[in-house]
Structure formats: C-alpha cells, structure tokens
C-alpha cells in the first residue's frame, strides 16, 4: 500500500507534507499580490514624522487593543466613518488592522479627534473618558522618537517597493540632514497645538518627543 511505503521513506514523506501544505498559500495568497492592494488614486505615502509616529504605535503595540479596520456594517460606519478600502493600506508596512477592540477602532480617528485631545488623553485616559481601562503613556512625553530610522524606512520602501517618495529621498547621511528640517517643521506644527512645556522646549531644541510623532500619525488616519 502506498502509505506503508511512504512511511518507510522519510524523504518522500517529508516532500509529500511540504507539497500538501503549500497548496493553500499558493492558491489563496499569491494571486492577490498580482492584482489587489493597489494604492488609491493620488494617494500619498506618510511623511517621515508620521512614519516615526507609526513606529511609536508599533513600539507600544497600540494594535493589541485598537483595530484599524472599519467593517462594512451600518453599526460600524455610524460609529467610525466610511468602511475601510484595500487601497488605503497599500503603503502600510506592516498592516496594523489589529485583531481585538479592547479600545475603539482608529482607522479614521484623525477625522474626529484633535492634537490637544490626544495630548490630554495619552497623559490620563480615564480623566478624558471616565471608566477607560487604557493605561497612561506618560513616557511618550519624555522619550524621543527615532526620526532618522523613520527616514531610513521611507528610503528603503522607496527603493525596494517604488513607494512614491520624492527624488530627495536618498540613503545618504547628507540627504537625511537636508530632509531633517522638514521633519522638525512638521513637529513644530504639532507642538504648537500642544500645551506641555517640556514637549515644546524639546521641539524648539530640534528634538521630537514620541508623543509629537504619534499624534502626527494619529491625525493622518483619516
């Protein structure tokens, strides 16, 4: 019998397993790479400050409690806004849909929350939303965001995946030094709407606290 023969020949047995478990990925996943998940028309990739904020979002694993996926139900579009489209995520590496809503969805949080709301909320969530079980993220006001790494990420995705960043995005230190003032200007615009003096001072010194980058990212979620 075939199976008795197979069980005496480990090489063919292992090969058989490999073939059988590969089917699903080949048929279900590969076709999508060719067709779907194209960006929406005229969609811009995130700025370096927003990317740095996305990295803060990843560092503190916000996605363990917040989704970024509005499903096509009236109860969800009433609560969060238009349902999500595949193309909107085309520049997201990684995807940050989340799998659990311990807190609300954030995919369009930029439409209905403001910089000062986030500032107050991240310092003390249960003061802004009584009953909230979200912890405060005070350390984001003192830790600095890694904007250089965010720039390196933008250059990497531009070179590897043709993400449409401008010609000035080059992987050299000189190019980064030339781009840095733009990031600091974006940060200053966010800090102008904040009241925390330490944050304002840091930005004035040319540093970007994590909270500034994070808010820039959250405001970009629309």
């Amino acid at each position, binding site marked *: 019998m075939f199976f008795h023969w197979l069980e005496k020949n480990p090489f063919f047995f292992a090969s058989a397993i490999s073939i059988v478990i590969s089917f699903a990925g080949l048929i279900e996943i590969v076709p999508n790479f060719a067709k779907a998940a194209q960006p929406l028309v005229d969609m811009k990739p995130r700025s370096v400050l927003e990317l740095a904020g996305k990295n803060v979002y990843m560092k503190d694993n916000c996605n363990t409690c917040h989704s970024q996926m509005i499903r096509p139900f009236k109860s969800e579009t009433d*609560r969060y806004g238009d349902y999500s489209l595949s193309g*909107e995520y085309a520049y997201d590496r990684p995807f940050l849909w989340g799998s659990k809503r311990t*807190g*609300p969805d954030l995919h369009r949080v930029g439409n209905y929350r403001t910089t000062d709301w986030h500032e107050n909320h991240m310092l003390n969530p249960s003061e802004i939303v009584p009953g909230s079980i979200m912890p405060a993220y005070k350390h984001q006001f003192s830790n600095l965001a890694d904007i250089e790494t965010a720039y390196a990420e933008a250059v990497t995705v531009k070179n*590897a995946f043709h993400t449409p960043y401008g010609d000035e995005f080059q992987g050299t230190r000189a190019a980064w030094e030339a781009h840095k003032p733009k990031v600091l200007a974006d940060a200053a615009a966010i800090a102008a709407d904040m009241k925390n003096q330490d944050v304002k001072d840091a930005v004035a010194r040319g540093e970007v606290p994590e909270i500034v980058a994070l808010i820039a990212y959250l405001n970009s979620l629309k």
Partner: protein
Amino acid sequence: MQSNAALEYDYSLAKKFTFLTILFGILGMLVGTLIAAQMAFPELNYLLGEYGTFSRLRPIHTNTVVFGFTVSGVFATWFYVGQRVLKVSMAESKFLMFIGNLQFWLYFVGALLATISLFFGFSTAKEYAEYEWPFDVVVVLVWVLWGVSMMGLIGIRREKALYISVWYYLACFLGIAMLYLFNNMSIPTYFATEGLGSVWHSVSMYSGTNDALVQWWYGHNAVAFAFTVPIIAMSYYFLPKESGQAIYSYKLSLLSFWGLMFVYLWAGSHHLLWSTVPDWMQTMGSAFSIVLILPSWGSAINMLLTMKGEWNQLTDNPLIKFMVLASTFYMLSTIEGPIQAIKSVNAIAHFTDWIPGHVHDGVLGWVVFMIMAAIFHMAPRMFKRELYSKKMMEQQFWLQTTAVVLYFTSMWIAGITQGMMWRAVDEYGNLMFSFIDTVTVLHPYYTIRAVAGVLYVTGFVMFAYNIYKTMTVGKVLSQEPQFRTPMA
C-alpha cells in the same frame, strides 16, 4: 546483528528542555495573569513604568507561551519520543548530541534576549511574529539545528516505519519553517541605507492587505503547527503508552493526518472576514474551517476510542484524566473555531473577548494539559524515580479544570455581550451605546478571568513542585516502568 538488550536512551536533552518548558510556562502564565488582571484593574499597568503596560506585556505573554513554553515542550518530548519510536539512542552519534546541545543553548539564550527586546519595545507589530529581524535569524538557526538532529536521528534509525508521532513532528518542523520564513520576510532599514537609524528596525516585505493575508496565513497556522500538530504527536505516543492500549484505528490516523495537512492552511483567512481581503478568499477561509472539523475530530475520536473498554483507568490514573480531558477540550475548541468562522457569527465575535476565550480553551485545556501529562509520564523514566504525589496531581487537575471553565465561560459572555452592544440600535436606528459603555460592562467578566488565571498558574506551580520533588525525593525505581506511570 542487533542485540535484544533494551536500548539505553539518552535523556539529557529531554531533561534540559523539560526544565525550560516549566520555566517558560511559569513566566508566560504569570505575565498572562498579570495582563488579565490589568484589564479588570488598570492601576496594575504602572508596576514597571513604561515596561509594564498591557501593550508591552501582551506580546511577551504570547511569545513566551508559544515560543518559550510550547516549543520547549515540543523539543522535550521529541528528544524523548523520537529516540524511542525510531529505536535509536541520541548517544550513538556524538554529532547529533553536539547539534542538540547547540540547539538548546542557542534557543535558551535567544529566547531570553528576545523577551528582553520586547520589553524595550522592539516589535514588528505582527502578532506572534513580533520579534525583530536579528531574533528571527536566531529562530531560523535553532529551527535548522532541530531539523538536522531530527533528520539525522531518522537517518540512523533501526525501526524502518515512521510511527504516527514522527509524522506529526516532521510536519511541525516543515510547517513552522515555511510559515515563519515567509511571514517574517523584511528588509533591515539600516542596511538598505548608508547606515541610517537603528540597526534593529526592519520593514515588512508585504504591505496592507497582502501583509494581512500572509500574517494570518502564518498566525492561524502557527497555531496549527505549534499548538495542534506536535500536541497530537504527543497524544499518539503518550496515551497508548500510559494506558497500555493500542491506537484505535490506523486508517483514522491516516485520514486525520493528511486531512489536517491539506485543510488547515486554507482556513487562515477566517481571521480576515469582513475585511478588505477579496471576498472569495474569505469564503474559502469559512468553508475550509468547517471542513477542518473532520480531521480535528478524527484525531480526538481516535484518542478517546483508544480508551475503549479501559475507561476505568480514568478514575484511578490522574495522568489518563489529563490526557482524556485534553482530547475533549480539543474537540470543544475545534468545533468552536469553525462556528466563529461562519461569517454571520464572526460579524459579532470578531474583535471581542470571545476570540481570546476560544484560544484559551484550546491552549489551557488541550496544549498545556497534554504537555504536562507528557512530562508526568516522562519524569519517572528520565529520573528513574516514582512521581512524588498522586494526590497533588488530582488536586491540580481539578483546580486547573475549574480555571479553564471559568476562563472560557466568562470570555464567551464578555465577547457576545460586547459584540451585541456594538451593534445595538434604538427605535430610530441610532447606536444605543457609546464605546466606553461596552468596556465598563465587562468589568465583572475580566475579574472572573483574572481569578481563573490565578487558579491556573497555581495549578501549574503545583505541577512544577511535583516534578521537582519527583526529581529529588521520589522513590527510586529499579527498572523502567513499561506502561502505567508509578506514583506515590
């Protein structure tokens, strides 16, 4: 010519990995209990400054129980079962012993450093794949080393036919290798530029919806190939060994194995129902999830029927109790999963606590119970001593069974409550509840779940203590027991 004398198996690696299983088990479950308590009592988020928030600890919990506890248990049992069903001792090859020890130390040090890296926030933010790229490289190395020693041992085997357990260990090795490699494909940004920014950071090779597809093909099947496949390998070895019964049906094991291999991977997209993944893929995920009941129940039924005519053992051997309950929870969990994968049910269940509830009746009831039973069975053989206390095993069994039941019932109620409240509308069609209403209502269930966690960890510590006492003061055995494990 072969001699008829019994082989002296080398248990040194099985012992080492057993210690790690217990160590990572305690750590992972303690963190799990802490984060469960944080959801009921948020002040507990501030025990360790920025390093103690739920969001930092949750990946530590998941990764420690998956890649620390469970994978250690898989290694521990492989280095015990592998030799015995292949009729060859590891000690017969110095090379294999060296590779095995190298694997152990690389794994131990790598796992500790990877855990520390999560504390500091190095995370790719892909679930169960949070380790940044340097640790992915370590994981791959460990896995390759395991492959070398597994294939090596198979290469020098005396028993020509591979026993069912070996099929599953092989599948575990191949499946995880494929999934882990493809899902963790990423480009380190430091090396893609002139050394700009952090060496640790990388960016995923896939974006958006594609990344989600690859991630949940991985996420779902990491569950398959770490939490199911090797655990079935254990039950096919330890249940017949402990009970002295032959496996009920070879044909059923054949059907279940190849069925599981083919069907499981398709079901990954049921994690993405109602998302922006193309509709046909979602439907495939749902459909194959239902089909998955067949091979899952096939294995479980094969286990239960193996006990046919010997059910009296259930009353007087706690080890059989652990294994039969594990198979039963496997059946519960593998019927619950397909129910959640039905699109209309998923619309309510997704994003709620019903999902962690489902994961935990599978993991606490099936995976951990089976691994503990395996270690209870191996300990007297490895240490040549009787198990320390049967009474403590009984107490532990009931304590942990109660804990699992409290865990999943509270999370079922919490999940369905929240799912229904999110969609509830008043007579004019307006949403009835603000989001925070759907959080505060869960407090009692989160409290019950935290209590369940405390009970479960207590049981696990009793298990660890029982094994420790077995090693140190258990009655010395003059010869290796054949079937039923001796216990005081």
